[in-house]
């Protein structure tokens, strides 16, 4: 990890890199055998930081990652304490060393101790270390690095004449499952001539003479479980062995943070590692984890349609490496369309996102893929009752390229058939990627797509009747990327080709389209305190003409005629931002974005100025932050579908003004508090997700209305009317978001998140709550790693009910509070050459009732257990 000091003597966290590895290839930079500060080699720093920011829209933090780590001067060895209790086993002690601008150690802080006298030995010994100072842009800066000292009892010794040791055991000690060498483990042999020992080298190799006959071999290491073996050798025998030892603990999703990312956005939350792959209730899907963050609720908790700060789901942009995704999740609550192993981290902006993102007025969810690391070649196969998937990554011999393939096939119809609902669903997705080049000229070719097909029984009263296709969604993308330059100065060039298809009601209603989307951006340092970040993109989409839906389909006909577009759609965008650091501790990012939206004869354009400020007024880890900005978007359907991205351009652009203020503090190592308030003014709002009609529009036949039906607003003799979806309204949302978070650096991770919010819409009768407004949203997430490769986790969600319409007014009442508890258990089993993960993930383990948000609708009770296996080769 690197915590660097700014050239003007202000300590801050810089982002060296953040990378994710599977258990097969994790490199534990925090493990420092034999008292050496393990520096991430420059190549991995470059590649890893490249992975973090290579294909993202250029952002300020990338310019700050040109850090040269400190180098030790002299030995960093700390001797085994002479007063250690006899019989003490292998232990390790981790401290955080602050290295000043002169290379001296200015502070040593205990992070993970092993008791006395080991803790004191490391705390005292580390103070005498000397380093060449770290540099940033050539200037010395202070850094804080973790240092782990492993203490292994010295190997036993006993006097024995060499001629009596007439046999030899040599070989390797490696980890069972991963086959990684175990360095600096003690190998002790006991035989008729006494006891002796040796230590494995960096490659896990050892050689130990023994007496002929029986020898008891023990291997001691703080990383390994006790290993005992009895060998029987003849005189003069030379035994060559490979001892497979079990690790004390494996982490299938180890994320090693090399420094914290320099935060430039006030409301961005980044999740990685176990947080995105093992959060209870997420089914291992990185994008579902966003639902447990502040500012987010859903139409229904099982359906991943996010309501971000009171915005319709269509107003929140879903991206993959800065590229829009037309569909994020498979149908009926399925997983995301990207294999989770492809995702390294997820960046979530509930608002206040930078000018590099355009076309949305709600939030932004951006999943980031990882560039392959040197030597990485895992193969992972996962199977559960709903789907099967594979992920494989392999360097291509003789080249500097790495190939990655992944895919999944879903068969939730098996589970649905058990419930006899007359519904069937099949889906698949695929990803294929080729990475190559060098740290200064990196390129990738990424081909991916997905398809969902929903069928229902022709006779719903007879679920076994013939099934017919009711909905089909598909998309394909070819993403070509090239980065030229280093972290401080680079150009990103990108070309995306795509195809989208949506068909419902047996292909009677739908759309298909092709598009091309070139993108370019540059990051240039103008001075030590000023950068220039500029870029643009041009999306050209050709939407095929579709036959008109049959008039017999009633409201579906009317809706499809309204939202279907055909012809040429052009979106262009340019942005410019100039991050300023006028003095140490203050970052100001003014920026502006311009967008053009053209469809046939309709042309709309917008200009969005935005500014972010981050200020660190004290030496402590405390930041004050603020954002203000304008955001525009074209009218979007409230549920994103492939090819149905924008429509009704004649209505004009939607707009919002967003203001935010917040405080961010590091309370203790690995524990962070983030508090922010926001106000969003939306004018106009169109295509809002609405379900609670005004009571005047509901025409009950008696004193009662029938639940479960959308109030049609039919007056006797009149046709159904969907025009309310196209009415322009004014909206506002405001609130407070708090998150207290524990980073995954000690086997425990989690967070407490609370949102206090109001989201409203105004019509002729004044302000009223938004149909999906929830005043209180509380989430608690906890994951704990246990001995013998067990992990357990839980998530609790409690949120207030949604508005209900009564005789006292539109949305004048509230439905009941909603509660949900998710549980997850993981177990890693280690075989000789591979690892097997077994997991049970239960969504809504208490089968709590949940209203569908429809006024007076039946509450839904559900439980979704997922039982799966994942093999890592």
């Amino acid at each position, binding site marked *: 990890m690197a915590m660097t000091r700014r050239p003007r003597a202000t300590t801050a966290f810089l982002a060296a890199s953040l990378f994710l590895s599977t258990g097969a290839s994790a490199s534990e930079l925090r493990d420092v055998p034999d008292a050496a500060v393990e520096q991430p080699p420059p190549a991995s720093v470059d590649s890893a930081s490249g992975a973090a920011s290579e294909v993202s829209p250029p952002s300020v933090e990338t310019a700050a990652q040109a850090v040269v780590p400190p180098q030790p001067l002299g030995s960093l060895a700390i001797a085994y304490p002479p007063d250690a209790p006899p019989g003490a086993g292998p232990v390790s002690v981790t401290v955080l060393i602050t290295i000043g601008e002169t290379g001296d150690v200015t502070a040593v802080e205990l992070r993970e101790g092993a008791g006395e006298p080991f803790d004191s030995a490391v705390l005292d010994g580390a103070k005498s270390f000397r380093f060449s100072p770290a540099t940033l842009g050539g200037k010395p800066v202070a850094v804080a690095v973790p240092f782990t000292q492993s203490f292994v009892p010295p190997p036993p010794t006993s006097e024995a004449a060499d001629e009596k040791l007439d046999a030899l055991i040599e070989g390797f000690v490696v980890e*069972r499952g991963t086959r990684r060498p175990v360095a600096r483990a003690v190998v002790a042999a006991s035989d008729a001539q006494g006891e002796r020992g040796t230590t494995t080298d960096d490659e896990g190799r050892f050689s130990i003479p023994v007496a002929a006959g029986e020898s008891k071999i023990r291997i001691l290491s703080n990383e390994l479980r006790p290993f005992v*073996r009895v060998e029987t050798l003849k005189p003069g025998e030379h035994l*060559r062995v490979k001892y497979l030892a079990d690790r004390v603990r494996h982490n299938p999703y180890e994320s090693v943070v090399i420094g914290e990312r320099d935060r430039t956005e006030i409301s961005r939350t980044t999740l990685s590692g176990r947080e995105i792959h093992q959060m209870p209730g997420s089914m291992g899907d990185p994008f579902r984890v966003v639902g447990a963050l502040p500012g987010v609720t859903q139409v229904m908790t099982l359906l991943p349609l996010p309501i971000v700060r009171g915005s319709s789901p269509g107003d929140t942009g879903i991206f993959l490496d800065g590229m829009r995704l037309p569909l994020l999740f498979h149908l009926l609550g399925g997983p995301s369309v990207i294999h989770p192993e492809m995702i390294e981290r997820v960046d979530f902006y509930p608002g206040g996102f930078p000018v590099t993102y355009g076309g949305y007025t709600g939030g932004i969810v951006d999943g980031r893929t990882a560039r392959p690391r040197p030597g990485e070649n895992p193969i992972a196969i996962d199977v559960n009752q709903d789907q099967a998937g594979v992920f494989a990554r392999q360097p291509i011999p003789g080249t500097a390229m790495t190939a990655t393939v992944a895919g999944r096939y879903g068969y939730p119809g098996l589970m649905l058939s058990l419930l006899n609902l007359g519904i069937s669903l099949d889906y698949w997705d695929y990803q294929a990627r080729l990475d190559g080049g060098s740290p200064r000229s990196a390129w990738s070719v990424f081909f991916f797509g997905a398809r969902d097909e929903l069928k229902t029984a022709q006779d719903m009263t007879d679920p076994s009747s013939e099934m017919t296709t009711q909905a089909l969604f598909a998309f394909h993308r070819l993403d070509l990327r090239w980065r030229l330059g280093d972290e401080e100065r680079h150009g990103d060039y990108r070309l995306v080709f795509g195809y989208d298809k949506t068909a419902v009601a047996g292909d009677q209603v739908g759309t298909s389209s092709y598009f091309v989307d070139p993108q370019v951006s540059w990051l240039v340092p103008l001075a030590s305190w000023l950068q220039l970040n500029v870029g643009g993109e041009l999306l050209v989409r050709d939407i095929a003409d579709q036959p008109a839906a049959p008039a017999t389909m009633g409201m579906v006909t009317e809706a499809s005629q309204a939202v279907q577009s055909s012809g040429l759609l052009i979106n262009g965008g340019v942005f410019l931002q100039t991050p300023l650091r006028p003095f140490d501790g203050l970052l100001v990012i003014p920026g502006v974005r311009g967008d053009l939206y053209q469809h046939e004869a309709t042309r709309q354009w917008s200009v969005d100025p935005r500014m972010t400020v981050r200020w660190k007024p004290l030496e402590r880890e405390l930041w004050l932050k603020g954002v203000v900005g304008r955001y525009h978007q074209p009218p979007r359907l409230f549920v994103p579908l492939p090819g149905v991205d924008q429509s009704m351009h004649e209505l004009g652009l939607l707009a919002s003004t967003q203001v935010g203020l917040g405080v961010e503090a590091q309370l203790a190592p690995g524990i962070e508090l983030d508090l922010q308030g926001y106000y969003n003014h939306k004018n106009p709002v169109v295509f809002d997700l609405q379900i609670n009609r005004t009571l005047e529009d509901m025409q009950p036949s008696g004193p009662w209305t029938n639940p479960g039906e959308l109030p049609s607003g039919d007056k006797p003799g009149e046709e159904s009317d969907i025009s309310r979806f196209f009415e322009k309204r004014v909206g506002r949302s405001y609130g407070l978001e708090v998150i207290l978070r524990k980073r995954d650096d000690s086997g425990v991770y989690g967070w407490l998140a609370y949102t206090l919010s109001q989201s409203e819409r105004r019509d002729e009768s004044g302000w009223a709550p938004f149909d999906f407004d929830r005043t209180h949203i509380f989430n608690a997430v906890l994951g704990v790693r246990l001995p013998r490769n067990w992990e357990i986790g839980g998530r609790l969600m409690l949120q207030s009910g949604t508005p209900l319409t*009564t005789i006292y007014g539109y949305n004048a009442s509230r*439905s009941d509070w909603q509660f949900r508890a998710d549980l997850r258990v993981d177990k890693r089993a280690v075989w000789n050459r591979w690892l097997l993960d077994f997991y049970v993930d239960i969504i809504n383990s*208490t089968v709590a009732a949940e209203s569908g948000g429809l006024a007076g609708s039946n509450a839904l009770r559900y439980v979704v257990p997922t039982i799966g296996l994942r093999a890592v080769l």
Partner: protein
Amino acid sequence: MRSLIFAASLMALVPSVAFAGEPEQAPSSESPTRLQAEREAVEDDGYEIRLSLPSEDDRAAWLQPGLRVELAVEYGVLLPNGPAPRIGGFTAHVRPRLRIDELWSIAATFGYTVARGDFQGVRWSAVVEPIFHPIPSLGVSLALGYGGLSVTRSSGSFPAGSSTETGSRTLGDDERLYGCSGGGWVSQARVEYLAVVGPLFSTGPYLVADSQWTGCEQSFGKTDRETGEQAMGRQWWLSLGGAIGWWLSWR
């Protein structure tokens, strides 16, 4: 039939995990019946593969305090009792269990039943289960917790008279609900036997007597225009029954 397939699939998914993590070589001398000839593998580079001998007896390992996680599949039925109908089907259980010492364990058992028959839907339960081990592999427990039903009648019409209902009310025992959605107390008495297969896996059968007290609610299909809430019919069901099942246990 499909439930059987599901249960079989569940069983098929997990057995490989049962045998993972175990050393290939012979167990300790304290369990001679499990002694096997060692199988020495030789890698391509000429080095012989060696695994560690077990560091403790398998049965002794299972008596050690610590976490176990268990899965079970059972078949059971709740018998008709007054207004409560017969509800039967396959159940999947997840049970994290903490072995306290040689005599006692404590567990949290979660069960989910796919109900089939006259009433279809889901039954669930979550109980706290202190377990007494009179002998190491035998367990006897009394559990108490909370559970619920979300079931509807497989056939038949909406309750007669619902069109005339004017508000929420509690139904008499002689009236029948079309469905039930609600929760209440659950109690269980269980006897189980776990046979130690290895240091990390054991398995065995169990019998359980089961009771559930459910506060059922079912919508009459009307909405109170003053509150926006549904008019509900309510009834209490006391269901008694039993089941037979099989545990898979890991430590």
